[in-house]
């Protein structure tokens, strides 16, 4: 039997985390952090090993499959595997977590618990992307909430209890929908209940049932992504989190929502997906503009960046809703790209806060005089975030734009309106990001700030973390096939399914081929939803 790369990547960090109490340490975290860094690096190498040894990017199907019967009575099996949807995100997770451990170097308060939670999250999040069984997915999804809650509630800012509670209520409430939809799908059609994705995909769900499940899952994953108006946990959680937790929240946690949308909503419920697709596009545009405006008005640095994350996630929604290979690839690339860029910006926020001890833009100004390297790092990462060509964000947004603009699924007028509105984001993003840079770094030095803070320039550890993030950002930006080729085959299969569903829909509605379906789609989706209880 081949080496179980994926199971190892999940279980190794969790197992190693359980040994943290036995690491000899004086309580200041100096040894624990090296231990954690070692474990996180080994986990990263394990995922890379899996990618290099057992993963062939040109194959569309599931690879690196490991399956062990667990509770056969339940149809529950330890079943993991990776395809194009999960592999990039698995690599992203182990990569960002390793850097987050490095970012957590200054943590001295309860370091054992802190690093324990980071490593437990590492395994948990890889599991979310790797498991191929809906029940396991639900467990992993829930288990990963616990470390986040604790990381927020113990190490957060002043309003940490409020933020942590909000986070847990929001996400736990929404996961109820996952459980219900999962159970419904498992028991659908009678017979032995099954939770495995492959068997679920083989089931022929009725359209009404699909629409019902889709709606529930959209709410659940929409909280995570987040989709406006289900986003209000995010600014609070981000506003209170410390830098390493931030990196994980923005870098990985948000991607769980996008991944789950692709995995369940698109792959398992294609007939419902083509009905909901126009709604996704509209929601995506709302995300982009609404969050860009709120970000512009925010005076708190962390919350500003948090809102910018929401804005960028809008492109993921449009890409998924475009029902085209190019747009969906763009959505996937946007997830990876934002994982890297978001993590880098939040890391910089934390590093800046360590020096200024304030997050209010009104209290900053002119810090570029003393922190020149920090200024340079901030500038590069902000430019990456505003989708400057040559960096990954640009390629992702471009693919989404072109994919959507050429998607024959939608009527021309719908495409024009949505593309124009989404492009407004192209103007708004530099406005809030460059204003932010101007208010932090430009101008004369703020005497008051300089007097009671220690504005030392970036240290090598910080430059190293940002450089690690910038290498893939620029690499993908210069040659996007580095990333897109790893999931191209899977994406084509997924979109092939969607096309088939689209053909079904045309048959069902009696529209001739080639006719654009939107805005008919939106009303069709609504009707199907209304009829659903009768059908289900």
């Amino acid at each position, binding site marked *: 039997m081949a080496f179980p790369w994926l199971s190892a990547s999940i279980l190794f960090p969790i197992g190693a985390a359980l040994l943290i109490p036995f690491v000899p340490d004086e309580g200041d975290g100096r040894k624990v952090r090296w231990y954690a860094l070692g474990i996180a690096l080994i986990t990263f190498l394990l995922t890379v090993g899996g990618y290099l040894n057992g993963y062939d990017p040109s194959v569309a199907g599931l690879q690196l499959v490991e399956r062990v019967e667990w*509770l056969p*009575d*339940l149809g529950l099996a330890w079943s993991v595997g990776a395809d194009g949807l999960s592999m990039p995100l698995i690599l992203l997770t182990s990569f960002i977590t390793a850097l987050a451990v490095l970012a957590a170097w200054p943590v001295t308060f309860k370091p054992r618990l802190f690093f324990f939670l980071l490593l437990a999250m590492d395994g948990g999040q890889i599991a979310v992307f790797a498991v191929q069984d809906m029940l396991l997915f639900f*467990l992993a999804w829930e288990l990963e*909430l*616990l470390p986040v*809650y604790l990381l927020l*509630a113990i190490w957060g800012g002043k309003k940490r*209890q*409020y933020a942590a509670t*909000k986070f*847990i*209520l*929001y996400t*736990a409430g929404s996961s109820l929908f996952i459980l219900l939809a999962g159970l419904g799908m498992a028991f659908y059609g009678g017979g032995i209940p099954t939770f495995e994705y492959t068997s679920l995909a083989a089931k022929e769900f009725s359209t009404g049932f699909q629409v019902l499940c889709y709606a529930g899952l959209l709410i659940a994953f929409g909280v995570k992504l987040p989709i406006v108006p289900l986003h*209000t946990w995010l600014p609070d959680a981000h506003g209170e989190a410390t830098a390493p937790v931030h990196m994980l929240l923005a870098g990985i946690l948000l991607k769980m929502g996008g991944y789950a949308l692709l995995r369940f909503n698109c792959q398992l419920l294609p007939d419902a997906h083509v009905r909901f697709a126009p709604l996704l596009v509209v929601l995506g545009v709302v995300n982009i503009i*609404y969050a860009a*405006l*709120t970000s512009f*008005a925010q005076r708190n640095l962390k919350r500003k960046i948090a809102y910018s994350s929401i804005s960028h996630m809008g492109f993921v929604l449009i890409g998924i809703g475009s029902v*085209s*290979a*190019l747009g*969906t*690839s763009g959505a996937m690339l946007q997830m990876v790209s934002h994982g890297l860029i978001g993590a880098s910006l939040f890391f910089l926020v934390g590093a800046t806060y360590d020096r200024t001890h304030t997050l209010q833009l009104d209290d900053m100004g002119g810090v*570029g*005089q003393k922190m020149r*390297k920090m200024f*340079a*790092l901030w500038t590069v990462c902000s430019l990456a975030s505003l989708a*400057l*060509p*040559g960096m990954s964000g*640009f390629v992702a947004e*471009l*693919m989404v*734009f*072109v*994919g959507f*603009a*050429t998607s024959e699924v939608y009527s021309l007028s719908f*495409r024009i309106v949505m593309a*124009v509105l989404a*492009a407004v984001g*192209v*103007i708004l993003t*530099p*406005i809030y990001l*460059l204003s932010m840079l*101007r208010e932090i*770094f*430009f*101008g*004369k*030095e703020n005497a008051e700030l300089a007097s009671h803070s220690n504005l030392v320039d970036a240290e090598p550890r910080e430059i190293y973390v940002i450089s690690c993030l910038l290498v893939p950002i620029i690499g993908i930006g210069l*040659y*996007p*096939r580095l990333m*897109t080729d790893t999931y191209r085959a899977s*994406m084509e299969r997924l979109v092939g399914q969607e096309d088939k569903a689209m053909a079904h829909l045309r048959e069902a509605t009696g529209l001739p081929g080639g006719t654009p379906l939107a805005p008919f789609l939106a009303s069709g989706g609504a009707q199907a939803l209304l009829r659903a209880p009768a059908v289900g």
Partner: protein
Amino acid sequence: MPSAAELAWLIPVLPLLGACVTGLGLISFNRTVNRLRKPVAVLLISCVGAAAVLSYAVLAEQLAGAGPIEVLFNWASAGTFNLQMGFRVDALGAVMLALVTTIALLVMVYSDGYMAHDKGYVRFFTYLALFSSSMLGLVISPNLLEIYVFWELVGMCSYLLVGFWYDRDAAANAAQKAFVVNRVGDFGLLLGILGLFWATGSFGFEEIGARLSEAVAGGSLSTGVAVILCLLVFMGPMAKSAQFPLHVWLPDAMEGPTPISALIHAATMVAAGVFLVARLQPVYEPFAAVQLTIAVIGTITLVLGASIALTQMDLKKGLAYSTVSQLGYMMLAMGCGAPVAGMFHLVTHAFFKAMLFLGSGSVIHAMEEVVGHEPVLAQDMRLMGGLRKFMPITSATFLIGCVAISGIPPLAGFWSKDEILGQAFGSFPVLWVAGFVTAGMTAFYMFRLYFLTFEGDFRGTDQAIQAQLLAAAGKASAADDSHDHGHHASHPHESGWQMAMPLAVLAVPSVLIGLLGTPWNSRFAGLLDPHEAAEMAEHFSWAEFLPLAGASVAISVAGISVAVLAYALHRIDLGTAVAARFPALNAFLANKWYLDDLNDKLFVQGSRKLARQVLEVDAKVVDGVVNLTGLLTLGSGEGLKYFETGRAQFYALIVFGGVIALVVLFGALG
């Protein structure tokens, strides 16, 4: 051995490599690298120099009649979609390559003198190399999408360089304004590119042009839609080439160091818009409405720029508005369907305007010795005067530039501007009138700049004017911080060889290059479009040429005469003769047509207000509902408190309890 054209990809890559090396050095070993001024300058100048040699080799090949060459590779793909990138060398690109590398090289040599005392010397050179690389990449882009990529990159370099002195608030604001206004143009450019791709399935210039007219002719695309798509794309050049109403960023961008104003904001980057329109001629040509719009916008811009330049007292701002006006001329040529004429003016203008800006930099550098490092003082012409005595090379080259831009034969500006006016006369006589009158204004304001700066008596030491200027700018009097630079010189000095040499070199093409484009035997047109050159030579007649050229020269001479009378001989006082008699007009021009105020009220304040309101809705309404639901579901504050004590175990218990219940349930069922 590969031909130079096959190696053209090296031209942008060489400066990029240099910039990467010094950039990484700055981040990793800041202090050490900052001390290595000369080695860094030598390295980067050699990189750009090598690129220049290669560019001239490419140009020589094109002159010898080599055809266009295109090399592509698959950059991104998904489904059936393949996106190609690569490079393309043709006559148009070769001309731009030679132009950009020449001016970049001269500006870099000049910067060695100009930035000698600046603590950001190394960073400045790094940015310069980065800009050269992006600009050269733009020039050899084979399709619209790649142009867009480099388009944004030159915009970024402009942002970094305008904000170079980041401790100045004005520079910070100008940098941001430049980027955002350009993004407004890019918004249209991006949508236009998307739309053209949707309509034609291609990003290539010729393919788009051919398929678009095919689609319109075949009836699958209405003319209206095609025109809208073309105009959307045109928004990009409007912003980048500072066309009305998106020109507002360019005068503010003068906050950057003066070599940057010469390289980026006069000679190369701002010309990129004109260059793109030239590239897009196959797309635009079949649509008269598009051509007319371009011509009208160009005309508005040329009048606007020249009229505002009449009243500017800041030397660099005056030159900046002059650039706006000249870019308007180029756009007018494009609108008249005469890309060769527009490109020719681009080339001649690049040389003499770069020289004028570098000359102004030399003046400012010299003035700083007298009035200190305060842009409000060092750039204001009320404090200059009589500089010819102190700075012979600068004043001589500046005068050459003034004559060239005024359109006096046989200097460069005459030939190119006259060709544009000739084309406009044939296509849009009304627009020709505007261009013709503006030619007179141009001659007047340029000589006004020259006389105020270089002739008369030196006024730099006049404390009363200094105090007055500082007060007008709302800054503290120089007396307060005079201890910073207490030992001011009493009069300015000519700049060192690094700064004088580029001026002298640029004077040569400013005088002579126009002769390459004489209408009866245009070598320039012969290179870009041999067919048109032959036609021009065939249709040329002295009877047509002389009246128009004579009129142009006459109005220029008239403009110069007014300037001489007003500023050299002091025979007429324009302040009382015109400004006092038409206060409304004077205020209109002095306030730059009120466009900045309008933008501020409408867009800046408007967007801020909108953003604040959305945030309010987010905090009060959306989040309010959430918090309210939270309260209601928990029954009372007691429940909330339970959660807030931090007992996460409680939640974990619920989850695990649920899962165990499930297991039991299934066990019972199974």
